């Protein structure tokens, strides 16, 4: 019981880190509110390292995810005949916006992933109430989407979201096995 309560507090800290990290990344990229792609980037920065390891399991470099986000924007524009010159690429134009004030606000895709994350964790807690919230859980929740910037970025990296979800599940299982 004590372990469960302690773990819930740790998970709350993880969620705070995920949200504030995602918001910072979005603001630094000129977006007022974070979306799924910023949540994934934030998950990659979590100290548990499971999100990064999940990428490694599918032989992908998680450091390339940020560039893949920019690339999928460029691809999307190119598909309608708009070609960006290399020196005007979206990723090369970091127009930072001021940090959000007051209540945390996010884009719809972010809220949707957080809801899925809650459901994933709720399901897991039926069998393991003390299992910590990991970056891999975020990947698992994020890859439940079919469309959107994050999924397009993964595909631009040559990563199949379904395979990344499998890798995230494997990382979660490995982490549970490694627990004392």
């Amino acid at each position, binding site marked *: 019981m004590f372990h469960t309560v302690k773990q819930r507090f740790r998970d709350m800290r993880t969620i705070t880190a995920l949200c504030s990290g995602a918001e910072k990344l979005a603001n630094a990229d000129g977006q*007022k509110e974070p979306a799924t792609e910023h949540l994934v980037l934030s998950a990659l920065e979590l100290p548990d390292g499971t999100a990064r390891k999940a990428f490694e399991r599918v032989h992908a470099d998680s450091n390339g995810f940020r560039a893949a986000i920019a690339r999928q924007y460029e691809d*999307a524009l190119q598909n309608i005949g708009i070609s960006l010159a290399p020196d005007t690429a979206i990723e090369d134009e970091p*127009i930072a916006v001021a940090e959000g004030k007051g209540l945390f606000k996010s884009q719809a895709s972010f809220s949707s992933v957080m809801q899925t994350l809650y459901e994933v964790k709720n399901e897991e807690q039926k069998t393991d109430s003390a299992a910590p919230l990991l970056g891999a859980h975020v990947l698992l929740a994020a890859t439940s989407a079919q469309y959107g910037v994050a999924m397009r970025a993964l595909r631009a990296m040559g990563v199949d979201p379904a395979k990344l979800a499998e890798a995230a599940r494997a990382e979660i299982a490995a982490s549970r096995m490694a627990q004392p």
Partner: protein
Amino acid sequence: MVKLKLLPSADDPAEALAAVVALRLMAEKLEIAAVKAALEQGWSWSQIAEALGVSKQAAHKRLANSLSKPRSE
């Protein structure tokens, strides 16, 4: 007025919608950069609003907070 026949094909909704998202982001970034430049050149919020075709209140509400104290990476 943009002629509809000049718009790209929307036969592939996934690609067309992804392009809409990219265009929206590009427009937002361009708007922030342009308003920032205008303010630095001494434009008033009334002038900016007029150029954007929105009310002064709407322009200020939507953009002022984004421009103050940008985060550093």
